[in-house]
């Protein structure tokens, strides 16, 4: 009897103890299992987890990708996880060791911290013969991410609405553009320029048109971090957001921006209830899919007063391999296959393939031979990589955040007492103050 009682006590404490240690022993098992798999002959083997932001197609298109992939690599079992909002969620997961084998590199991690989390994919000098857009995620000559597609940014517009408004030529300058928006308001039922204020992220699309307004591929990464006059009258940022302010001030946007909905706006653009939206190439396919006459949806460069019209090409997310991956060989194989053979960059991604020499997508072919140039932005100067980001975060300006864009719209509607110049001055002051901390 006494023995049994003692046993119970022991068992209870074992139970408690195993709760604590349970996780630890599991990890060890997992490590030894997969360790045995890699390195054997006949190509990579084992399980990999691919994390994606595309919640919409993870169970359809990506499943097909896995089947295709398995034809070449039959011993790799690919699992997918789609997370949203990608950026926030993945950053939290990256504090653990479990953030998949293949994933998109969050844009907001510091460039110099990249090697802590990701495997190098190769030397920049070698790989750049093969791919475009690698500079964004390269540290000390090593590449950590390849863009899943290369986007171009500008405005999507409905050609039917433009016709109804009597606009015969696609507006090129800012004045022509404002006149076009007015004409849409006067002559049609459509909303001239839809801001998608409520979604927040859609407003950040404006920032990608900075290069077009500047008319210079150097502006974003080279000129901007070395100037104190970033939000001053006459400078690209001022001119870019003045378009936004003026459009709101003149009532050329949706009736109540606080209650808009992104999904509805896509359908409205497709059906001619909206004239224009500031977006990137990635949205073109999504909007065209919602109408029976996809040829009505056009792309145009953002209006600019610069001499040359440059449509900026920019990396979408870049894809890379986790440094904590237990199956790196298979993960590398997936990255390689995904970029080169899946077709994602041009089909689902909707932009240009990062592979050098790949065919241009159809929407871009129409601009061949015109005076519109599609160009990559110049990467930051050596020693200045990540500087722009540091200034941006420290100053809480948020070039790629919706905050100050919302502020501009609120001011233009008349909800706050700020003028456009007040906001710009405020941003510039914050810019100057933070730049002084980092720029030597």
């Amino acid at each position, binding site marked *: 009897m*006494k023995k049994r*009682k*003692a046993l*119970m*006590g022991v068992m*209870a*404490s074992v*139970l*408690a103890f195993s*709760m*604590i240690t349970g996780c630890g022993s599991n990890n060890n098992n997992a490590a030894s299992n997969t360790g045995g798999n890699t390195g054997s002959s006949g190509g990579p083997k084992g399980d990999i987890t691919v994390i994606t932001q595309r919640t919409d197609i993870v169970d359809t298109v990506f499943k097909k990708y896995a089947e295709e992939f398995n034809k070449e690599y039959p011993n790799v079992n690919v699992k997918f996880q789609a997370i949203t909002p990608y950026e*926030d969620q993945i*950053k939290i997961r*990256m*504090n653990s060791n479990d953030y998949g084998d293949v994933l998109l590199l969050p844009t*907001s*991690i*510091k460039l110099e*911290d990249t090697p*802590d*989390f990701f495997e190098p994919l190769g030397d920049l000098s070698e790989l750049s013969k093969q791919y475009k857009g690698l500079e964004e995620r390269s540290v000390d000559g090593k590449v950590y991410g390849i863009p899943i597609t290369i986007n171009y940014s500008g405005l999507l517009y409905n050609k039917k609405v433009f016709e109804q408004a009597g606009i015969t030529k696609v507006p090129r300058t800012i004045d022509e553009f404002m006149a076009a928006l007015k004409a849409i308001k006067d002559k049609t039922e459509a909303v001239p320029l839809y801001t998608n*204020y*409520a979604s*927040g992220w859609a407003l950040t699309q404006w920032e990608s048109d900075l290069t077009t307004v500047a008319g210079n591929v150097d502006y974003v990464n080279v000129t901007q971090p070395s100037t104190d006059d970033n939000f001053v009258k006459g400078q690209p940022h001022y001119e870019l957001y003045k378009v936004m302010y003026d459009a709101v001030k003149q009532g050329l946007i949706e*009736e*109540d*921006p*606080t*209650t808009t*909905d992104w999904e509805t706006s896509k359908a409205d653009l497709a059906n001619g209830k909206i004239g224009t939206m500031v977006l990137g190439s990635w949205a073109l396919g999504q909007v065209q899919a919602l109408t029976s006459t996809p040829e009505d949806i056009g792309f145009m460069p953002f209006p600019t007063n610069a001499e040359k019209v440059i449509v900026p090409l920019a990396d979408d997310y870049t894809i890379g391999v986790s440094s904590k991956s237990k199956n790196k060989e298979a993960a590398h194989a997936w990255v390689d296959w995904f970029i080169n053979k899946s077709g994602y960059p041009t089909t689902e991604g909707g932009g240009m393939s990062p592979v050098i020499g790949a065919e241009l997508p159809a929407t871009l072919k129409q601009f061949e031979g015109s005076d519109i140039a599609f160009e990559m932005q110049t990467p930051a100067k050596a020693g200045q990589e990540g500087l722009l980001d540091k200034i941006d*975060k420290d100053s*809480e300006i*948020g070039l790629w*955040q*919706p*905050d100050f864009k*919302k502020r501009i719209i*609120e001011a233009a*509607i008349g*909800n*706050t007492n700020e003028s456009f110049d007040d906001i710009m001055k405020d941003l510039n002051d914050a810019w100057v103050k933070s730049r002084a901390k980092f720029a030597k």
Partner: protein
Amino acid sequence: MSYKTQRKVIIFAFSAIPVILLFTFAYLPVFNMIKYSFTNWDGLSKHKEYIGFDNYKAIFTDPKYFSVFKVSLYYFVATFVQMGLALYFATILSYKLRLKNFFKGILFFPYLLNGVAIGFIFLFFFRPDGTLNTLLDLVGLGNLSHKWLLDTSTVNVALAGTSVWRYMGSNFIIFLGAISSIGKDVYEAADIDGANKWHQFRHIILPSIKKIVQLNLILAISGAISVFDIPYIMLGGSNGSNTFVIQTVDLAFKYGKYGLASAMAVVLLIIVIIVTLVQRLVIKGDD
């Protein structure tokens, strides 16, 4: 092993698990948060520098971090509306009533809904051509219709109203539970003495559930200070609806200032503790 030691072992073993869980998921994060609040960590980097009280200095010297507390006033006022309504419905539904359980269900239902869903429902509700304005038109109050979320004078009222709609059910159910624990014989005696329903409420119900009212008040006020979900989902804190917690989340996730955000969270924790203590002192009952 004697019965006594056996009992001790069992008690220890069974309380160890909840204590470990509590420690791992409640206390450890708070300790870490306090630690982070003295660093300039960006939430991801392997390097963090200890910068002393700089984060706290920033919070208390830069007015933009603290000014958002005035938005909390809307929710503070709404708290009393919420408590009043909850108490009113709880009292009514504690009497004999037809379809009593049906009404209980209806009142409690919003609390069961997911906050995100509620946010989206009310986005449609407050649209210019949305439910609220349509309703106003129908009953002939069309001149009251409004762009509720666009107008800075109504945006916080609308959001606080949504919040009341959502959380009233939880207050209501707690009150109802407390009221139903009052013995039937007390009411019977009151009826015999000729007390009407109002008298019963004032002299029987309210004194009996005083403790619960106080508890709900503490919960509701600390909720008003740390309001987050409804304004974040509906407007992302824009158009003047920004609150302290939204600001904290923005700093941590948009601008990678985990250190500063942790410091703000510590400040919020301290404020909530102080408010709770003050409340306890002010409405000190006979314990």
